[in-house]
């Protein structure tokens, strides 16, 4: 039984009903179907709306009421698959009913398709959320603020600082968008093209909804009013040394251009904690060239402890969403072709994120002392 579930049914005086007891371990498909039905029920017309279908004589009309277009089918998380695997059962155990409700809302637009146009699988995303929720709550103990800046339905670009060797910062922002934002929003991270060529990683990224960073992809996502998380520092953010942590590197400009072209705001996002999760002491470029990698980090634990040394330290994360920049309301789309203006706007965003990061880093240090 989960902590946040309140059982209101009356059980027998001695012992308990075994069927009720199994609530927490019910097959997730059943629970998801219930979650879907609840969302559908909310969208159904209320009784007073139904009364309007009576004709002038007060008799019920034989014609069905005009209720508008049918409600889209909510995802059933591949209920054609009769055998839910161990991972699905584990995910069902880790996620609450509220989490499944949020996922059902997010994936309603798929209309029953097993994959979206970017290769995301709701089923794999659900499994991943269960894992990342553990990291979110117990490993990184994420505290987030400023969710009011996240639009409820419209698209936007989230520009964040990057750090920490492995992109756990991105996964925590995505988890925060599902678990903490109201209503939940699926935040799609733009990942480096290089990631698309790495075995296993490319498949995982695609299935959990991350998208390879091409302008066409960003255009499609913004056109579909999705939230796109971009790290304008690029690879420079995660390869910076420990001495430079929380110092934002120079920004790539593409995110400002796309914001102007697609008329969406830029939400600055400050992530504090990621730069401490795996401090890089040295970037061994000769080794990077040897292995064909963009960089080869030397950290206190890697390569000393092998691949285990890449695991992030259990640092506290803070995620803050700032007031959106609405350059698109002040400048026409053609401004995207003016490199000076775009650079100026990117610098504005960079400064704002740096301020937000600095405030939180100073507050942390003050708290410690």
């Amino acid at each position: 039984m989960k902590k946040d579930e309140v059982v209101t049914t009356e059980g027998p005086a001695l012992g308990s009903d075994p069927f009720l007891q199994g609530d927490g371990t019910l097959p997730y498909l059943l629970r998801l179907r219930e979650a879907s039905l609840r969302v559908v029920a909310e969208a159904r017309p209320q009784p007073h709306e139904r009364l309007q279908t009576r004709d002038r004589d007060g008799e019920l009309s034989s014609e069905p009421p005009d209720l508008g277009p049918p409600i889209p089918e909510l995802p059933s998380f591949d209920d054609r698959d009769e055998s839910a695997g161990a991972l699905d059962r584990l995910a069902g155990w880790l996620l609450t009913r509220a989490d499944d409700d949020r996922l059902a809302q997010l994936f309603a637009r798929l209309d029953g398709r097993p994959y979206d146009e970017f290769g995301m699988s709701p089923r794999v995303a659900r499994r991943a959320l269960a894992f990342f929720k553990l990291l979110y709550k117990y490993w990184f103990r994420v505290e987030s603020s400023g969710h009011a800046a996240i639009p409820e339905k419209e698209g936007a670009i989230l520009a964040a600082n990057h750090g920490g060797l492995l992109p756990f910062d991105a996964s925590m922002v995505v988890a925060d968008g599902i678990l903490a934002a109201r209503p939940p929003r699926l935040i799609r991270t733009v990942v480096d093209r290089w990631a698309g060529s790495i075995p296993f990683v490319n498949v995982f990224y695609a299935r959990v909804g991350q998208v390879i960073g091409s302008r066409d992809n960003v255009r499609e996502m913004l056109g579909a009013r999705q939230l796109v998380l971009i790290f304008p520092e690029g690879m420079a953010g995660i390869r910076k040394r420990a001495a430079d942590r929380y110092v934002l590197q120079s920004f790539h400009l593409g995110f400002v251009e796309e914001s102007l072209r697609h008329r969406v705001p830029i939400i600055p996002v400050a992530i504090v904690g990621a730069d401490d999760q795996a401090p890089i002491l040295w970037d061994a470029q000769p080794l990077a060239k040897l292995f064909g990698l963009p960089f080869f980090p030397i950290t206190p634990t890697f390569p000393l402890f092998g691949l285990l040394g890449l695991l992030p330290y259990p640092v506290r994360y803070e995620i803050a969403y700032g007031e959106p920049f609405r350059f698109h309301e002040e400048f026409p789309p053609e401004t995207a072709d003016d490199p000076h203006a775009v650079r100026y706007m990117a610098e504005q965003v960079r400064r704002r994120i740096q301020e937000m990061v600095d405030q939180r880093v100073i507050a942390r240090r003050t708290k410690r002392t």
Partner: protein
Amino acid sequence: MRRVLVTHIESPVGRRLAKALYHDPEVALVVGVGTAPEPSFLAPYRGKIAYQRLDLAKARHLQSFLHSERFARARVDSVLHLPFVSDRPGERVPGGVPSLVSETRRLVEECVARPAIERFVYLSSVFVYAPEPGNVNLVSENQLLGFDGEGDADVRAWIDADLICQNELHGSSLRMTILRAATIVTEAGEFLNSPPLAHGEAQIGYDPMLSVVSDRDVARALVLALHADRPGVYNVASREIFPRSQLRDSSRRLGPLVLPEPLGGALSLVEQALGRRRAHVTSFHRYGVVVNTRLAHDVLGFEPQYRIEVRGQGPRRRIDTVRSR
């Protein structure tokens, strides 16, 4: 009222197209050509569809047909060219897929030389696009084509034929429309025009997404392109996309698993030293082709009417086409 020549009408897509054209009031006459004897499914359509057996890969066959009294009487004004690429041994185009290039070139040249022929619709494939790690999502029509000299021969043939038709897009009297169809799924659950699924090998660590489309929807798109008279290049696919592994399972074409680079490269050297054949792995085994069909929707009015569904797990996996609600 259009008078249409349809090539490879005996193919699965041709079969669907024949039915659609027969019921189309805007089409007066259809001349279907194919390499096989007249298929039995054309029997009910004889009032409107005439069949001519000829091998388009052979120049003299095409020449003699185009100069015949029969062709003159037909007064054809539009051509729907369907390159029929099936992987089933008995159904391949004579000469293999590369003959697609020669027959397409010849057909286009002949059509350009005949002013009476106004429209030409060519059914190409989305696998002409270059598969790259950077374009795994939603490839649009202006994406670069995959000019890989060491690539799959079938894919090179598709690209060459596509380019031949593209040459007529600008400054030609022929109004050329190129439809690039995703992997075509027939009612029987077979795949057509899909080089990535022609071979069963899979590379460990990669499972690219592929667009699919029902053969009925392809036929619809061809008819729409015929009537729309909007020259250009359009992607045609259904809304569903699937990982290659699921399609491969459902096609029962299972091949060896290949290790990713650099392990795979080292292993292939060992295999070569032992005299074993190297597994046939191309970039299509690593990177997917999922296409953006907005242009076809906006310009041609194409909206897929059939959903593709993959049911079951593992070896029991099968693929179905279901009419959308």
